[in-house]
């Protein structure tokens, strides 16, 4: 090639150099996409990592189906994302498989009507009791989702297996908004959960594949819950 270099015209040389630069950049981009895979998320999946994610989703990996759907939810038309999420919802087996997209799509996206989501969550909760927190959250959903039901939400509180400080705060807001009367049994269950939160404040629960609130409990959260609980006393 070096022997021929002098014989080539300027145009050919420019094309060759540009091709080499583009080829090197493409190779670098692919290698980088594979190496940085564990740092990529739904906003940045690309190259090798994206292909691998899609393959995992096609093989039925539930978390990959949610992630691939999340990636597609940034690309029009959004129906493709909905199809992957629908598949993931129906394949849910554990509490962590019940992703928030289900609440976000509730009664907005075909296939995600409130009754279908509820029955999926109730199926999962049989084998994954930590999913009661997801049901609790679901029954507090705001319109247009028709799942809102304070009786059902209250029934979840004694079943909770984790500190639910954020969802309980949401519950208190709904109770005040709807002027709902909280029964003595539910108040006792809330008291029990607040005590659990106090223990978690002292010693964080171990990381594990269980549903939990998305922010750790703070002393102020407990003080707010105690104040809200006291205000419920008849």
């Amino acid at each position: 090639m070096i022997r021929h270099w002098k014989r080539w015209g300027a145009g050919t040389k420019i094309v060759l150099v540009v091709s080499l630069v583009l080829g090197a950049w493409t190779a670098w981009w692919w290698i980088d996409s594979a190496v940085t895979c564990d740092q990529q998320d739904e906003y940045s999946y690309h190259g090798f990592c994206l292909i691998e994610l899609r393959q995992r989703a096609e093989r039925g990996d539930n978390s990959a189906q949610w992630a691939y759907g999340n990636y597609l939810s940034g690309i029009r038309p959004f129906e493709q994302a909905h199809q992957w999420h629908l598949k993931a919802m129906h394949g849910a087996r554990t509490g962590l498989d019940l992703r928030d997209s289900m609440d976000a799509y509730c009664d907005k996206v075909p296939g995600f009507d409130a009754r279908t989501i509820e029955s999926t969550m109730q199926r999962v909760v049989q084998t994954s009791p930590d999913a009661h927190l997801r049901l609790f959250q679901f029954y507090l959903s705001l319109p247009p989702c028709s799942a809102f039901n304070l009786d059902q939400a209250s029934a979840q509180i004694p079943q909770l297996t984790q500190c639910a400080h954020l969802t309980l705060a949401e519950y208190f807001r709904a109770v005040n908004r709807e002027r709902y009367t909280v029964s003595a049994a539910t108040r006792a269950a809330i008291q029990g959960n607040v005590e659990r939160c106090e223990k978690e404040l002292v010693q964080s629960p171990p990381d594990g594949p269980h549903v939990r609130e998305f922010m750790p409990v703070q002393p102020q959260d407990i003080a707010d819950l105690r104040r809200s609980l006291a205000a419920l006393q008849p």
Partner: protein
Amino acid sequence: MSQHPDRISMAWKQWLTKEPAEPVENGRIQYGPGKGMIKQVFEGLDASQKMVRKIATIDPIRKKIILIQPREKVLYQSGLREKGVPGYLYVFAHATATTLQGMNRAERVAALIRSSGVWNTEPVLIDACNAGATFDGIASALATALRTHVTAPTTTTWNYPLGGSAVGQGAFEKLPGILAALPMPDLFRPGVWRTWGPDGQPIATTPTSPRDTGDLLKGTLMQKIRQRR
């Protein structure tokens, strides 16, 4: 999903340099560009069902919240450059039509905003790609959850730092097809900034962000919002 022209060059820089994390004591950054800002940790699941700890950086003076995943240095630096918009809570993050930094459930975003301590029922400006792309997406749900006005772009947003504070806050679609990977807006397909009322219904659109023009801030809509508060 804000697009940054320096994103590609940053990838190799991150391979070569590892800067220490910002020092945080009592929940506040001690020095550096984010000095005095509050750090709050929240969690999300990744594609392997692992919990990923994410970071909310809260600027109590400018009433601004930057949501990032660890290592998203470019997004973080872009967020720090933003000065916020008086009268609004300014939220800077990656987003899609239905998610804000991975959060699909608007009540989560609302909980994060409430616990930030900087929100006092004022309208929220979401500066994040596609957050307002659909009428019933994350922006609408957040307006319902917080019972306040929320403004968000309908397309990808483009912040060009040009050495200093970000200039322009354009909302444009990406280039079509394979060209979409290039960090350049399609100037022939502009987006708009849409505003939702506290009931989650869309009520207005403007061609530019309230940060750049103050349209909503000075207009009759803002007067109505102030009267209601």
